[in-house]
């Protein structure tokens, strides 16, 4: 159960996390980082960033925490990262090789009232897109 006055940092774990917030009236999102897109020859985009937002959660008793995963490198499989919504795969993720980096997974907070089943979206730091596998052209040597 979350405690008043407690500050917690959640990092990527590969699954959603939940907190009992039945004794909590309000939370402050001190910092919320979105996941980056996967790199290839092109660089994956950076995630979005939210700092200092506040939320009245007095009507909810469970907080779902989804921390997104960086998209896979285009040098390997280039798969989309895990998140509440997964990032998109690159063009060739099923076989590896050329195709670009995967998109990052979404980083989100969701509140629930388990007595009614109501679910509300709190906030999201969106993920960056994957970089391309562009091949740099080289002028021929004569």
């Amino acid at each position, binding site marked *: 159960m979350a405690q008043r006055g407690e500050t917690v940092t959640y990092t990527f774990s590969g699954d959603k996390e939940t907190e009992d917030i039945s004794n909590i009236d309000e*939370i402050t999102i001190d910092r919320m980082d979105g996941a980056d897109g996967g790199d290839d020859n092109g660089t994956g985009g950076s*995630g979005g960033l939210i700092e200092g937002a506040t939320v009245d959660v007095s009507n909810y008793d469970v907080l779902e925490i989804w921390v997104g995963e960086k*998209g896979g490198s285009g040098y390997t499989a280039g798969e989309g990262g895990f998140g509440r*919504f997964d990032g998109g795969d690159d063009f060739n993720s099923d076989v590896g090789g050329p195709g*670009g980096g995967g*998109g990052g997974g979404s980083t989100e907070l969701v509140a629930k009232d388990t007595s009614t089943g109501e679910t509300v979206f709190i*906030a999201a730091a969106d993920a960056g897109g994957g970089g391309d596998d562009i091949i740099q052209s080289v002028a021929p040597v004569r």
Partner: protein
Amino acid sequence: MGGGGARGGAGDAGGNDGGGTGFGGDGADTSTGDGEDGGQELGIASGGTLTTGGSADGSGEIKITYGSGATTSEEPPKAPSNLTVNPID
């Protein structure tokens, strides 16, 4: 041909000649090289600063403080223990 970043729906897979689209940043295509940055969205949250450039190590991260600005008290108010009454003439 990079994949799209996600939020609100899975990012699309990249195509042979174009980057996948996502509700976050789109994946790069051959004309851009680099993937697009993701944005931010507020639901019932409010205030704060919304920018890009999040994530120091690649994956996401969330830092939360619970109960700040709480409106209720843990202890009930105490009754006064020593009262003095001055009668009014």
